[in-house]
Structure formats: structure tokens, C-alpha cells
């Protein structure tokens, strides 16, 4: 080994780290950045725009559909509870981290179930698990089809549309994880609510 002439092992290690930092810390991520042009939509975050061309969010990142007081807005399908910041804060992703026997979590689940049941005028037994549990990211854009189905009547009433029209939009916002319709489809709330706003705007014109 020739190492002894050049500050020994630490010298070799330092030169190696400099070379690898340039290759793996600069060249590699920027090369992928260049290749990302093949997938411009994905690379920039799967952003969605409204009919006027304004960016209104991302199909991958859930949003809050509550008013300034934190009350759920009746005309929007409601997402899962979120532990990210004050709810769907995409700059502080994370879960509640409450344990399976946590008294705090127990209370939260009972309260959410009662609220969801009242808000949608359905019995508590019809409120599914995803409506009362926070996701790990706090940014889950999806809800179960059960949770969507108990919200259909409320949304239809608030928007002055028929339940059939709303159900058709729910079907369109289903996530295609499989080439065929799976038995428990998931619904993208961001897309669904965006489409519903467009539908209302179109019928108003």
C-alpha cells in the first residue's frame, strides 16, 4: 500500500469521501433530475389544476375540507382524520403515534365516530375504520368506498345534485390499483372534490 506517504488511512479516506460526494451527492441526483424530464408530472409532484389552470394541490397529497373554524364542509367529501400539523399540513407529515391501548386514542376514535355519524345522519355502526383513524403520513388522499358511500347523500343535498350524479363521480375517482374493479375500491378525495366543484360550476353556467 502506498498510503503511508499521504496521511495514512485518514488521507485515503478523505480523498475517497471527496470523490464519492461529487459522484453520488452531485452527479447522481442531478442525472436523475435530468432523466426526470421523461416524467414531468410525477417529478413535480402530480399537481392538479382547476378549470382556470390554477394549481389546487396534488393527487397524492390529501387536503383538509374544513372551514376556518375546523368544521367539515358539507358539500365536500371528508378525508380521514390527519395528525400532520393541524391536519393535512404537508410540511409536517406524520402519524399520531398513539399506541393500540392509548386512552387518548380511544377517546378520539369514539368522538370521531359520533361526529361522522351525526354529520352524515347514519348509525355509528356504518362508520368504517378509516373514517376514525389517522394515517401514518397524515396526508392520505384516499378513503374507503364505504366511507365515500355514507357521505353521498349529504354531499348531494349540499350541492343540489342527485345521488346518482354524485355516485358516478365517486366511481370516476376510484383508484385503479388493479386492471379490474377490486372488491374494496379506494376513492381519491382530492380528485373527487375537484371534479364535483367543476360539475357544479358547469351546471351553473
Amino acid at each position: 500500500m502506498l498510503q503511508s506517504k499521504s496521511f495514512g488511512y485518514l488521507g485515503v479516506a478523505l480523498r475517497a469521501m471527496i470523490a464519492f460526494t461529487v459522484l453520488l451527492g452531485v452527479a447522481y441526483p442531478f442525472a436523475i433530475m435530468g432523466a426526470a424530464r421523461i416524467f414531468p408530472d410525477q417529478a413535480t409532484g402530480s399537481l392538479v389544476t382547476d378549470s382556470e389552470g390554477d394549481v389546487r394541490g396534488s393527487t397524492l397529497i390529501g387536503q383538509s375540507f374544513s372551514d376556518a373554524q375546523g368544521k367539515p364542509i358539507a358539500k365536500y367529501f371528508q378525508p380521514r382524520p390527519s395528525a400532520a400539523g393541524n391536519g393535512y399540513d404537508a410540511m409536517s407529515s406524520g402519524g399520531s403515534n398513539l399506541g393500540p391501548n392509548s386512552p387518548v386514542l380511544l377517546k378520539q376514535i369514539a368522538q370521531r365516530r359520533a361526529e361522522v355519524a351525526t354529520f352524515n345522519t347514519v348509525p355509528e355502526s356504518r362508520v368504517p375504520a378509516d373514517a376514525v383513524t389517522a394515517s401514518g403520513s397524515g396526508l392520505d388522499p384516499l378513503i374507503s368506498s364505504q366511507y365515500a358511500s355514507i357521505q353521498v347523500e349529504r354531499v348531494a343535498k349540499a350541492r343540489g345534485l342527485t345521488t346518482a350524479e354524485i355516485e358516478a363521480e365517486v366511481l370516476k375517482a376510484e383508484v385503479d390499483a388493479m386492471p379490474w374493479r377490486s372488491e374494496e375500491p379506494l376513492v381519491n378525495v382530492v380528485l373527487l372534490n375537484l371534479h364535483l366543484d367543476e360539475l357544479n360550476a358547469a351546471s351553473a353556467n
Partner: protein
Amino acid sequence: MNTLFVIQFILLIAALGACYKPLGDYMGRTFATERDIAPERWLYRWLRVDPRSAQTWQSYARSVLAFSVVGLVLLYLIQRLQAFLPFAGGHKGVEPFLAFNTAASFATNTNWQNYSPEQTLGHSVQMFGLTVQNFVSGATGLAVAIALVRGFAYVKRGTIGNFWVDATRAIFRILLPLAVVSALVLLAGGVIQNLVGHTDVTTIAGGTQSIPGGPVASQEAIKLLGTNGGGFFNANSAHPFENPNAWTNIFEVFLMLLIPFSLPRTFGWMVGNHKQGYTILGVMGTLFAGSLALMSWFEMRGAGAATQLAGTALEGKELAFGVLGSTLFGTASTSTSTGAVNMMHDSMTPQGGLMAMINMMLGEISPGGVGTGLYGLLILAVITVFIAGLLVGRTPEYLGKKIGPLQMKLASLYVLVTPTLVLAGTALSFALPWARESVTGTSILNTGPHGLSEVLYAFTSAANNNGSAFAGLTGNTPWLNASLGVVMILGRFIPIVLALALAGSLSAQTRVPSTSGTLPTTSPLYAGMLMSVAILVSALTYFPALTLGPLAEGMH
């Protein structure tokens, strides 16, 4: 969703099976060849290293340590000086204790995170610091495993290869090409790759939301391939920009398992006996399958008062992955030393969380991290032939190498290091009055036995260089930053030095011909013994601690 899961699981096994021979043989050839490619020659010239010179184990170990220390110091400085770097995104320099913990964490392939990335790190530290360490710490683990296998394969040499050559090849020929391809696949699946700080939007309901940007795909690929696990975002692989859907989820599981499950083939290739490789693979695979089945069953069963009130164990889980997509990821991550999470482990059922801990407590051998899994299991293989030798009264040997007092001392010390760190670290957290005050007052989120589980999980994760967490625990305190940082360093480098010492002693030996008295190490009987040794060693060590945490909670 269960149909989807079954299809994905079959695809996963098929893909891993299809890669086993080609990738395993390719890695064997990569570390054996005498031919250097052009960029490697340029690098050796810049390093002033003769690629044909072989190192003794002492020299190899010094190189590993020097490389890691320099990497650690560099990463510490990059974080401290963050404000002066481009793409810092307005983030200040990281505080000293936290910067030490993070530097130790990424340089040891642990990737424990006491910080929330969105609020702490700019793109510069993520790229120049963390992405680089993801590669080099993975390459270091791979190099050490190859060096140990050389100890078995070489006869009367005393040397175990050249660390600089092994690390360079691990990066140039294995990790970097695989990472480029994987990053593109992840990009296509929806993982972001840009230099935007964040995009502010008016949401559909008229509120505001800041959507983060970043070079995520390039880091995500090596985070999984190198079994590192440090998330670009706080929510790690639960974050939709790191892991957007069920298909990227299964691809990420594949990336974590790819190299660790192919290395037994490399081992067989290098010692010239593929059956030896299949035995090791069989042990790794059986442990993995058993653990996956148990964790999945526990989470589907959904124990715990809160879980049962909700109906399904969905707290902390993403709907896109479902319960089974989460347990598959969780099992892969905790049994490969990756430590990435696509669900919040703190909210798992008591028994599901127990399985995550057991995967780590096995010593990361099912299949373990890149390289670390193979060398960990080979040490247990040595212990197994020794125990078998005691039972029948023969001198133990493994692959034609005598397992004498020196080898057994090294192997035994290796097995003792991690449990000592885990149990001492957890105990000190509660025994030292000021540490106890900090841990119970600030760090622990959940009360009762689950709170103890959070601390036990943290030290298990740190000592085994896993990096996953019961994330309710606030680790950003002087005590946990310092103690976990030290545990990660000791848990990484003491075992490495012992494994290299073992490699050196074996390499110097002659090969004893196998006779009728030699214990065959390719039989199912031997594989069963090896598995029992792995389970017994960890079960006996950790059982008392587990009874106070997850087991007590599970009885509740």
C-alpha cells in the same frame, strides 16, 4: 385489497427468485476479478491506492474505520454549516447534539432520525450528505461481508482483500447502477425529483397548503437498496411522495430484499459450493416467512382496546397499502436493517410491534442488511458448528476451517455486543436519575408498558443499526441524541472489527479435508440447528425485557 396483496406477494417472490442466481453470481465475480474499469482506475490513482495489494485484517479494519470516521465528521460539518450551502431552503445549521446523532446514524447505516426532515434539512444536506452516506455505508457493509467470506475461501493467505477496491466496486458496479434504474422506476410511479423548496397552493376548499419538493427519487432508491431507511420526509415511506401507491410499495419491498437475499448465492459462489449458499438462504427465508406470517396475523387480528374500537388496525397506516402491504413492508424493513417505515410502528398492535422488535433482536439476519446480514448469519453458523461439535465430541469445522478457541472467542464476543448495548442503554435510560427524568418527562409519548417499549425499541433499533422507531418517542434530547449515537457507533464497528479479525484468522488457516466425522453444513438438519441457535440466543437474551414491554401490554 387482499387479492391485490396476494398477486403482489407472488410477483415479489418470483422477482427475487429470478434475481438470486444472476445477481448473486455477478456480485461474486465483481469482487473476485482482477480487472478494473476506467473510472475505478482514475479513482485508485486519486486515492493513491494499489488495487492489487491485499490487506491483512488489521489494515482492512483500519481502512473501514478511517472511511467511516471521515464520513461521519464530514456529515457532521455539512449539517452544522448548512446555512452556507446552496439549496439550503432557509434552514439554519443543525444543533450540535442532533448533528452528531444524525451523522452517527447515517455513517453506521442506521438512519435513525431524531429530526423532522421537512423542518430541519435543506436539499443540500439531503443530497451531499445523506444520499452519499446511504451509498458508502451500504458499500462498507457489503465489503466486510465479502472479506469474511474470503476468510473461509482463502487458504494460508492471511490477507482478506483490499477494502478500497471492495468499496469502490460495491458502489460503481452494484449500488450505483441499481440505484439509477430503481430511481427511474420510482419516478415513473410518482416519486418526486425536483429542487423546488415548496409550492404554495390554494386548496380546493379555499385553504392553503404548502406542497414540498426535493430530490426524493434519487435518495429513495438508495435508501432501500442500501438497506439504509432514512426518510426524505418525516413520515418516511408512508409519505405519498416517497411511496405513492400499492405498486411502488411492493417495488420498495423488493429493493430492500434484493441484495440481502442474493448474497447467499455470492457466498456459495465464492466458497465454490452453491449448496452452502442455499442453506444460508433457507435459514434467512424461513425466518423471514415465519415472521411475516406472524406479524400479518397479529395486525389482521387487531388486538388493543383502541384498535378494536376502530374495527381495523388502520391507525398509522395508509389505505393504499392496507394492513398486509404495511406488514410486508414492516417485516422487510425490520429484518433487513433498513428501518424505513410505511406505517407508524408505535400504533401497531402490541404483538405486531413485538414482531418488529424480534426481527431486529435476531441480530438482523433474516436476511439482514446489505452485507451485515450475511456476516451476522455466518458468525452464527460458526457458533452452530461449535455447539454441534460439543454434542458429538468432535473438533468443529466450517467450510474446511477449524473453529478453535480464538474463532469461538471472536464469534461469542460478536454475539454479545448488540444485546449488551440494547439492554444497558435501555436500563441506563431509567436508572440514571437525570436520564430517567428526560426520558419519562420529555421523550416517552405513550404511558404504561407501551412507554417502555418505545425506549426498548429505540435502543434495539440503534444497536442493530436498523433505524425504525416507535416514533412517538421524542429522541431529540441531549440524553437520547448522545446515548443512541454512541450505541449506533459501537453496535456497528465493534462487530465489524470482530468479523474482520475472524476473517483474518480463518484466511491464514489451511483447509482440513472433510471426513466421515465432519458435520455436513448443507443438510436440513444443520439449517434447523442454525435457525434454533439464532432464535435461542436472542430469545434468551431479550425475553425479560420484552415481558416488561410488549408482552405486558399484550396481556392487558
